């Protein structure tokens, strides 16, 4: 509606309202009288409130600070709600206030009690006040119900509180017992493990480790020594193979050969200085020849002796025992002995080492189990100790409540009979009836103009269809139409006056009768 100005729209709206005046006026009559009727029918509600003081500042409190756990006022509001909604309290209050009596059926009574429960509101105000509110159509009854509830609460509150702290104590006590059993079980397990693993003592691990290290060192050392002994044995054995057991002294043949060689050298040097026929040279040559002759004879004699099978006589001076050989032999046997010894020692060390390692392994296993059991034991012990403390605190709290020395309830302000009703009052209905009676029908006409696609604004025609509006002809009413309209208009005015009269009369009645 971009081309429609607000003035145009208001004009059309006003005209449409007049056009539909019958519907508008009837709408006004129905709505306004409907609201008036509703205002008459809907009962007035009176709200009564009582406050209960939760008195927790008594002489014992500073003494029990941190030991006993005093109940919070919010918890008391919850307790109050629970208590007030309990069957006993509701039954008593309903009967005392006259809401239910013997003439009603059980079902009717239940319905009334349910409504009563719904109408009660319990809330905590500030740090130590509990507010009980109840709404009723009869002001006296509202006050009675609230005062009854407050009285019942003060009476029942003490026992309820007592019961609650007792149940708290009992719960903690049960827990303490449970944890005690757990602790005993943990201790037993720990003892069993210790007796099963005697070597699993504190510090055992370090000593075993030192021993293992020592054994390992010894083992390595022995292995090295053994290797050395073996090498020595080998070398001695090799040397021994190169020596004969008996050293044969030089034979005559040998001696001759040696002589010959010496003579030959002498001869060679003589010949450098002298001629071959020098007497020294000749003499030397002869000596060599003699010696060769002697070797030949010696060989023949040996051959002859071999052939005849006769053992050749060996000169004592010629055969001697070999001293190096003897020494080597003794060394070899000493080395053999050492090897044997070392091998035995190696075996023993190895066995010892294995044993120690096995022991160490067993020690580790038992230590893990020990740690686990110890942990269980410690956790259980801590919880048990905490619970013990709590149980004692709960015991004190319980005793306080039992003795009535904890928190006290006292009716701080009892309910008075309410004078003014709460919620929507008759006046509100009257005003709403008049305002909505006018607004709703006009709103409907407005909605019709907005929704109806049919053209009511001439400016729209020129804007959309592109045609100029050359004339705007108002509705031409005939005389009959005008007189009909006049009659209808009067009727409408009379209707409105009647409605206003009814309003005025009822309002006046209400005023004079009191609100």
């Amino acid at each position: 509606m971009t081309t429609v100005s607000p003035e145009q729209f208001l004009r059309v709206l006003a005209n449409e309202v007049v056009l539909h005046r019958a519907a508008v006026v009837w709408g006004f009559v129905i709505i306004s009288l409907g609201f008036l009727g509703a205002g008459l029918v809907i009962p007035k509600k009176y709200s009564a409130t009582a406050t209960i003081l939760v008195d927790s500042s008594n002489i014992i409190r500073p003494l029990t600070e941190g030991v006993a756990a005093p109940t919070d006022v919010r918890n008391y509001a919850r307790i109050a709600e629970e208590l007030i909604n309990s069957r006993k309290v509701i039954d008593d209050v309903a009967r005392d206030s006259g809401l239910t009596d013997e003439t009603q059926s059980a079902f009717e009574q239940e319905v009334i009690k349910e409504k009563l429960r719904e109408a009660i509101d319990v809330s905590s105000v500030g740090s130590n006040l509990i507010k009980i509110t109840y709404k009723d159509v009869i002001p006296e009854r509202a006050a009675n119900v609230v005062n009854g509830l407050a009285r019942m609460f003060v009476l029942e509150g003490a026992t309820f509180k007592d019961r609650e702290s007792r149940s708290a104590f009992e719960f903690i006590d049960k827990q303490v017992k449970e944890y005690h059993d757990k602790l005993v079980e943990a201790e037993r397990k720990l003892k069993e493990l210790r007796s099963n693993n005697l070597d699993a003592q504190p510090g055992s691990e370090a000593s075993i480790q030192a021993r293992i290290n020592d054994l390992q060192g010894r083992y390595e050392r022995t292995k090295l020594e053994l290797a050395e002994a073996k090498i020595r044995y080998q070398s001695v054995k090799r040397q021994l193979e190169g020596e004969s057991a008996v050293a044969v002294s030089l034979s005559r043949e040998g001696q001759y050969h040696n002589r010959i060689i010496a003579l030959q050298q002498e001869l060679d040097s003589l010949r450098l200085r002298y001629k071959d026929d020098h007497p020294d040279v000749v003499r030397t040559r002869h000596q060599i020849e003699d010696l060769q002759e002697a070797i030949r004879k010696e060989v023949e004699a040996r051959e002859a002796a071999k052939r005849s099978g006769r053992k050749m006589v060996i000169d004592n001076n010629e055969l001697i025992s070999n001293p190096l050989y003897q020494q080597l032999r003794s060394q070899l046997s000493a080395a053999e002995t050492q090897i044997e010894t070392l091998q035995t020692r190696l075996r023993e060390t190895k066995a010892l080492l294995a044993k120690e390692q096995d022991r160490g392994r067993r020690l580790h296993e038992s230590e893990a189990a020990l740690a686990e059991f110890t942990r269980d034991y410690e956790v259980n012990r801590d919880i048990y100790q905490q619970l013990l403390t709590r149980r004692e605190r709960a015991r004190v709290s319980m005793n306080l409540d039992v003795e009535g020395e904890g928190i006290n309830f006292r009716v701080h302000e009892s309910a008075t009979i309410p004078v003014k009703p709460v919620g929507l009052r008759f006046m509100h209905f009257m005003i709403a009836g008049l305002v909505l009676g006018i607004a709703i029908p006009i709103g409907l006409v407005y909605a019709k103009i907005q929704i109806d696609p049919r053209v009511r604004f001439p400016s729209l025609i020129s804007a959309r269809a592109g045609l100029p509006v050359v004339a705007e002809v108002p509705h031409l009413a005939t005389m009959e139409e005008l007189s009909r309209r006049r009659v209808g208009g009067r009727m409408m005015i009379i209707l409105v006056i009647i409605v206003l009269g009814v309003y005025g009369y009822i309002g006046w009645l209400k005023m004079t009768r009191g609100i």
Partner: protein
Amino acid sequence: MSKIDEALSKAAESGARSLVPSYMPSGSRESGTSMTQIVAPISSKRRGDITLMLEPKQLTVSELNKKRIVHPDMPDVRIVDSFRRLRTKLLQDANGKNLTIMVTAVRAGGGASFTALNLATVFSFDKAKTALLLDCNMQSSSLRHILRTSSEVGLTDYLESDSVSLDEIIQPSGVPRLRWIPAGEQREITHEYYSSVKMQAMMKALKERYSDRYIIIDAPPVTQAADATILADFCDCVLLVVPYGKVTERQIEAAAKLFENHERVGVVFNDSPDYIKMAG
């Protein structure tokens, strides 16, 4: 001057009463009849002399009020004024020429007859002028119940029959200086009449009959066949009546499209409730 004009003046002088049209289905065919002869002659004593027009019994003020016809002494002067303004606007646009105006509605019951009748009435307020209202609602005429007639014959009779003269169908309405041609007998199929040669000739004759006469055609609504578009061709301007709160924008747009070739088309926003005037 065209041939038709010559013929008309000639015929008027000779005082011939009627000529049989050659194309009418019901009329007897006369050989040699030309187009120049089909139009009824005009009596010389009436021609151009408005004051001599025969005025039968006039409608009284109460009758006018009852029939929803405007008159200068109306209690609600706003309606007369709105029609007067419309007249003035049309005359300004016409530059002093005689006007032929067609009034049609966007939908049936849109108030075209009401507008046409009252526009004609307002034209006839001027004592020096006359108005002729041509009722072309052959299917359902509402004017026949409103205006007076001196005889039963109307437009259909004239177009169908050679024996009916134009003078016979132009009838006094009961409103001073307002003459009208009733639709005549009710007919269902109508566009043949409006596209006929006789219709064209009649329109021409009517336009020229009085120098100071305004012709207003009350045409059927645009929703009904093509009558309004055919009739628009005879007219200088077209008035499209849009009733208040009865038609949608789309209907108006569709109606406007029918006359998009026509130069002068205007909208008359009719029947707007005017109980309360605000901001002008």
